[in-house]
């Protein structure tokens, strides 16, 4: 479930606010930013950066750029969310590049630059966000399926199930230290598999 937006906004209201912002009243963007910040953060930025502090910075930068460049947005009868999302994706690539990390890992984590195609299917921002989350989940599950079973179990118990290290070790009938090693190797294997896709 995606974080709930601050308030629902009909499309015609969204269009009116954008026209107002393009007319010079930038504060008119506030309800739009409040509405779309949560799904941008939860389904676009954080899953691709993996760092909450960086994700908030990118979110702020995304929203500031959108307000600053609102004149460049052309209303096409659908929500502004896909445009915001594209700005966020570009910012995420910039972060990965500036961090000089593995290009392949950065590409894999930022995955998919091209946005969706059907205007009708992207008319609803929440639907888009849910679809995005579903795609990410499918990618994660596909990757996990290809891992050795013990690695898959370690990740599912600790990172997804959020069981304590003690409980995870108990269920796998190993020591806590051995579980730490198992989880460390599991995440390394997951990363290695992601960049090889």
């Amino acid at each position, binding site marked *: 479930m995606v974080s709930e937006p601050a308030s629902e906004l009909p499309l015609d209201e969204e269009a009116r606010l954008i026209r107002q912002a393009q007319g010079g009243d930038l504060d008119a963007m506030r309800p739009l930013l409040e509405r779309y910040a949560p799904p941008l*953060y*939860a389904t676009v930025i*954080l899953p691709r*950066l993996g*760092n909450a502090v960086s994700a908030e910075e990118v979110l702020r930068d995304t929203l500031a750029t959108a307000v600053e460049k609102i004149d460049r947005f052309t209303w096409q009868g659908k929500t502004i969310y896909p445009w915001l999302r594209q700005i966020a994706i570009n910012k995420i690539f910039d972060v990965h590049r500036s961090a000089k990390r593995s290009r392949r890992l950065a590409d894999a984590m930022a995955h998919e630059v091209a946005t969706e195609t059907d205007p009708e299917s992207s008319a609803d921002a929440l639907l888009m966000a849910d679809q995005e989350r579903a795609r990410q989940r499918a990618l994660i599950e596909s990757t996990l399926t290809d891992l050795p079973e013990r690695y898959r179990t370690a990740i599912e118990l600790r990172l997804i199930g959020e069981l304590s290290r003690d409980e995870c070790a108990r269920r796998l009938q190993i020591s806590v230290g051995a579980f*730490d*090693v198992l989880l460390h190797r599991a*995440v390394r294997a997951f990363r*290695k598999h992601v960049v090889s896709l």
Partner: protein
Amino acid sequence: MRPDDPTDLPPDDDAVPAPDAPADASERARAKAFAELIDKVVAGRPPAAVPSEQQELLEVATALRASVRPVELGASRRSAIVESALAAAIDRRAGGHGRVSASLPVVPIGRAAARRGARTPWLIAATTSLVAAAALTLWLRDRGAPRAAPPAPATAAAAPLPLELRSRPADPLVGAIPAERAGAALDRIDTIYADRLDGFRARTMSGGLR
């Protein structure tokens, strides 16, 4: 798809040992450090400082969690981020254009300087004369007129400004800073900024800012 580049791989991205392969002391130490970082992430307290060799792995783990678990951006954080973004954009727009009113005459700098130079001695002379005349007038008036009674002291001090419009420390806003959040200065800056921006808005809306 980019071509494979062996130099593009991070240093430890070699073959991952089998699940049951024995671990040496070095690997056990790294695994324990990583596990403690994960403890913080799972507890909702992302570590402020992460050793570089663990950074990528931690981000992969966090991204994995964010993809399959619900993630909340708290209402206060959301509002602080939105306020900060709006303020930054408005500032950028104001600073970036720098428009000059078309109704003002534009004088080349050279001619303007020359004109100012020619007028300066006359301006000094006129100013000096005016000051002298004003001083003489005041002296003559004071000699002739009875001394006026001193004004009554103000009986009521000007009403003090409300707290949110005055300079004040940020400690009550930020509170105690736990060691693990020492590096998350942006959160605290955002909180302070949003609070001060509220006061600025209140002042400008009431017409108090000149």
